[in-house]
């Protein structure tokens, strides 16, 4: 069954990718989608089996590497963590496949699109079912590739190509960290299989090594390297710049890859390696700080963005920050819970936004939207549900997971925990504001779109609405249905050995936090709603005024804290300069000049000289012969010492 779950998307990819042209659009769509739906159904069965039945297993696929000290197999590791990810990945992927049938109906390259989607799903499944670090790395790179292909799907758009390259390059930085981490793991543990490594962790903890004259903790170093990889994939502060640009890809892609699944790979990685992180407290602190800072940073930027997809993208970034600081305070269950619910409501928001964009004839700028709630009521309702879930209003999914996360940060009672808690509360306020701002600008107020757009505005077809409804159901009920399993009383039974916590169980101590902590997130959410309502419904001149009053702050946020400019200044321009220098001066000026070009010029010069000697006069020729003889005779006379 597990093999079927993992390999059905691969089969779909191969069929649509290799024979898509012959099969045509319809067949490619239905084959890939059908396989994915089957995979999703099986995943749910698997989830029930693992989560309720508690049957964790190891499925052997093949012997992969057997070389010297390096021995491991290709196995599917099925435990609660994997089961959760299986459901998230296959369910969202299946819904996105279905949705795309409608959304991509005007595109000429449907087989390619569906092939890529299936390829992505396969790679993601490889990642989450990995039994060892190398298998995980395979999936990790596979999703990176698929992400690159899908961001650049509209390859005729220069901006899409640029975004695809950017995503790939930024991820390279992260992947470099991850691969270093994996190499270090093999060096230290002599194995890359999870169970072997994890079992050996306590023995390694505390060991140090010398690097550039400094003493460094082995395990902390490894964990930090792994975290660098996680930061790249999950767009954490510093390596986040690719995610907003990745919105150049088709919207279903954003929903699948850049909201629900791939970007959560980093969270999964840290949760999976919890037995290692638990013995590296410093690494955990770093995770907390980075996560909390990302949460507040991304939320603040989302406040002022005008592109509907970019707002949601920054929101994703911010929510990933929540997950990371939850991991950082050892609340792995809470992080996974938030990942789980977030997948539903964020995919819902993205697909909803896609529905809006579809209705608006591919308009993405919220300033040109507005007043569309009567024309696309279903989409409107769906977006409202998504927003309520995101802002954490009872009883929607976000309420359960987000509150748990925030409470966990408080309950940690550490410096970084406090920091994370404060950041999380402020970010929650911002989240509420920008989410409602999005709703109000898009659906309420006057219609600011052009005549043409309004005339063509229409509700999306059922094939697009169906996935929205399914996700909406998830966004509504996923919270209270699974709360007990993920973070409540049933958590020990549910997670089993998948997650490891060394010290106090943080999820236990959240029951003892002060009451104000429990209510604060809800309060700030409502506050955010009120401010947004005031700004965008009541007195619509206010936003401009506020922006004018805090001009520099506004610019700072609008320009995303100038990260892109900073990177441009620090890395891009120096590398361009270096590249140009090496190209013009190094390659052209030295290697070419003295190598190929120089030799060619030299050869031509020699040739011309040889030709000019060839005068055609007999006496010149005779002279050359005599000189030749004279030279040779002289040579022998001198080497011989003369007559």
């Amino acid at each position, binding site marked *: 069954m597990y093999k079927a779950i993992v390999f059905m998307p691969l089969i779909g990819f191969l069929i649509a990718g290799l024979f898509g042209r012959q099969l045509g659009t319809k067949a490619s769509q239905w084959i890939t989608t059908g396989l994915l739906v089957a995979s999703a159904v099986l995943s749910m069965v698997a989830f029930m089996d693992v989560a309720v039945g508690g049957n964790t297993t190891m499925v052997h696929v093949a012997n992969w590497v057997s070389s010297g000290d390096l021995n491991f197999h290709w196995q599917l590791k099925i435990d609660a963590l994997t089961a959760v990810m299986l459901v998230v990945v296959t369910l969202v992927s299946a819904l996105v496949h279905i949705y795309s049938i409608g959304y991509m109906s005007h595109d000429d390259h449907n087989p390619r699109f569906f092939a890529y989607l299936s390829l992505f799903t396969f790679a993601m499944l490889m990642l989450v079912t990995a039994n060892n670090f190398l298998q995980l790395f395979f999936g990790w790179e596979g999703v990176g590739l698929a992400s690159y292909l899908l961001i650049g799907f509209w390859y005729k758009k220069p901006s899409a190509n640029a975004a695809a390259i950017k995503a790939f390059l930024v991820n390279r930085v992260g992947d470099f960290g991850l691969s270093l981490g994996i190499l270090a793991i093999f060096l230290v543990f002599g194995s890359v299989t999870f169970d072997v490594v994890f079992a050996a962790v306590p023995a390694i903890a505390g060991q140090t090594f010398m690097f550039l004259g400094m003493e460094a903790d082995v395990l902390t170093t490894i964990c930090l390297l792994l975290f660098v990889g996680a930061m790249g994939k999950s767009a954490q502060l510093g390596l986040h710049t690719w995610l907003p640009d990745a919105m150049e890809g088709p919207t279903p892609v954003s929903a699948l890859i850049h909201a629900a699944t791939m970007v959560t790979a980093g969270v999964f990685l840290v949760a999976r390696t919890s037995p290692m992180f638990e013995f590296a407290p410093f690494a955990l602190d770093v995770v907390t700080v980075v996560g909390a800072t990302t949460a507040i940073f991304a939320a603040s930027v989302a406040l002022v963005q005008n592109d509907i997809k970019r707002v949601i993208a920054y929101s994703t970034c911010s929510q990933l920050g929540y997950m990371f600081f939850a991991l950082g305070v050892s609340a792995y269950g809470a992080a996974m819970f938030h990942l789980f619910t977030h997948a539903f409501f964020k995919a819902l928001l993205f697909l909803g936004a896609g529905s809006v964009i579809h209705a608006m004839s591919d308009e993405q700028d919220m300033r040109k939207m507005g007043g569309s709630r009567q024309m696309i009521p279903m989409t409107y309702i769906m977006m409202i549900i998504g927003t309520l879930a995101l802002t954490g209003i009872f009883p929607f999914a976000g309420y359960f997971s987000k509150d748990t996360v925030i409470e966990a940060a408080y309950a940690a009672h550490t410096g970084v925990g406090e920091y994370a808690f404060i950041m999380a509360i402020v970010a929650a306020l911002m989240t509420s504001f920008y989410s409602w701002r999005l709703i109000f600008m898009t659906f309420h107020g006057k219609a600011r779109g052009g005549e043409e757009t309004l005339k063509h505005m229409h509700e999306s077809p059922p094939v697009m609405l169906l996935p929205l409804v399914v996700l909406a159901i998830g966004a509504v009920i996923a919270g209270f249905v699974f709360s007990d399993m993920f973070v409540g009383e049933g958590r020990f039974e549910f997670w089993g050995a998948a997650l490891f916590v060394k010290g106090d169980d943080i999820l236990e101590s959240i029951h003892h936090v002060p009451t104000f902590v429990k209510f604060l997130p809800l309060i700030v959410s409502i506050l955010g709603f009120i401010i947004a309502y005031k700004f965008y419904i009541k007195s619509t001149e206010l936003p401009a005024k506020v922006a004018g009053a805090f001009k520099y702050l506004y610019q700072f946020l609008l320009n995303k804290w100038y990260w892109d400019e900073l990177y441009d200044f620090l890395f891009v321009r120096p590398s361009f300069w270096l590249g140009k220098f090496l190209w013009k001066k190094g390659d052209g000026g030295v290697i070419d000049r003295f190598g190929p070009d120089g030799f060619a010029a030299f*050869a*031509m010069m*020699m*040739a*011309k000289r*040889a*030709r000019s*000697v*060839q005068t*055609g006069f*007999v006496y*010149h*020729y*005779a002279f*050359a*012969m005599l*000189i*030749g*003889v004279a030279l*040779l*005779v002289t*040579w*022998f*006379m001198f080497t*011989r010492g003369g*007559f």
Partner: protein
Amino acid sequence: MSATLPDLTPALPEIFVACAAMALLMVGVFKKDNLLKVVTRLGVLSLAIAFVIMVAKMPGLDRVATTFGGMFIVDGFSVFMKSLVLIGSMAALLMSQQYLIDRKIDRFEFPVLIVLATLGMMMMISANDFMALYVGLELQSLSLYVLASFDRERQRSTEAGLKYFVLGALSSGMLLYGISLIYGFSGTTSFSVLSTGLANSENIGLVVGLVFVLAGLAFKVSAVPFHMWTPDVYEGAPTPVTALFAAAPKVAAMALLMRVVLGGFPTMAADWQQIIIFISIGSMLVGAFAALVQTNIKRLMAYSSIGHVGYALVGLAAGTVQGVEGVLVYMTIYMTMTIGTFACILSMRRDKALDLDINELAGLSRNQPAMAFALAVFMFSLAGIPLLAGFFGKYFIFMSAIDAGLYTLAIIGFVASVVGAFYYLRIVKIMYFDEPAAKFDDNEFGTMGFIMGLTAALNSPLSFLLIYPLLGLAGVAAASLF
């Protein structure tokens, strides 16, 4: 000296060729009609018969026979080289008819002269004494001077003949001067006697004599700096004559050079090796660089031949059996490549005249794909691209140089062949990638296509099958020189 008649058996092929040449002359003189075709066929036939006689009467693979008081020698080496010369001359004869008829110089003297030149070459190869060497050399040269100016109405042709004659006379003078010095300092002209120890490096007079002799011979193989006649004569001479020049006399002169240094002066190896290395490097470099700016394909082939002589001399410079073996293989392969290339050059006809600018080959692949393919094979082979015969030739030569410790020579050889590859590949590029020029005329003689096809096949990767038998024969031939 006793008055008994010398043993004529070893010289039977030469005697037959001499008689045949005179008989052909008589046929031509006493028949009134134009007999080019008949005489050509008879000429080829007599050379073929000479070949058969030579093989039938050879003393045995590893046996040596001498006659005329030791002046004339027949051994494995001479049989090998004479075979090449005979094949080269026959091919040149067969390829010449069309051109001569087109140019309206289809006179019967042409084949007769070629047969006589061939006789000279055969005598050179079998010479075991400076006297015999000189007689053979002059017989060959005089025939070739006349052949070069055979198209006597054309200024270029007469100019070529005259230049060749004047410079050839100079080189003969040097050669004779060298011979006289050697005779003066050693008291003999026989290679066999010289090699027994009379020749030694202590004697500077002998060294100077050797320099002059080698200068005279270097002229014949057109090695730098005695090469300057080559481009002008190759270009000016009638094209079939150029084809002959590039194939047969080169082989004969190379054989002579090897016979002199290895047969006559093995005790002075250290001295002549320096000279050979000097002219070898010069030839490889001039052959590679000077050809880059040539547009006339005959001039280009002239420089190409200079370069290839340079490579062949690398093997001789090594001075080992392996090196000589390499030279023999190299000359064999070189001859097939050259004959094939000239078959193509002789097919570059439009309105009964040859267009010899390399740009006329543009787009040949679309007009005459078979010829373009054959020419491409020759060019790749000349450039020494692996899998083709030319590669094996270079490979054995350079291997022998490296085994003999001549690393500099080998490296210069590599560099020169890389540079040289440029102009060979440029021809391929012109044929395959440029916009087609006008179509060439079809050949009226089937022999041209046959020669092209056969030589192309010999140079193609099929040469894998032939290279080891050839190496075996060359090994036996080379061993007889030591």
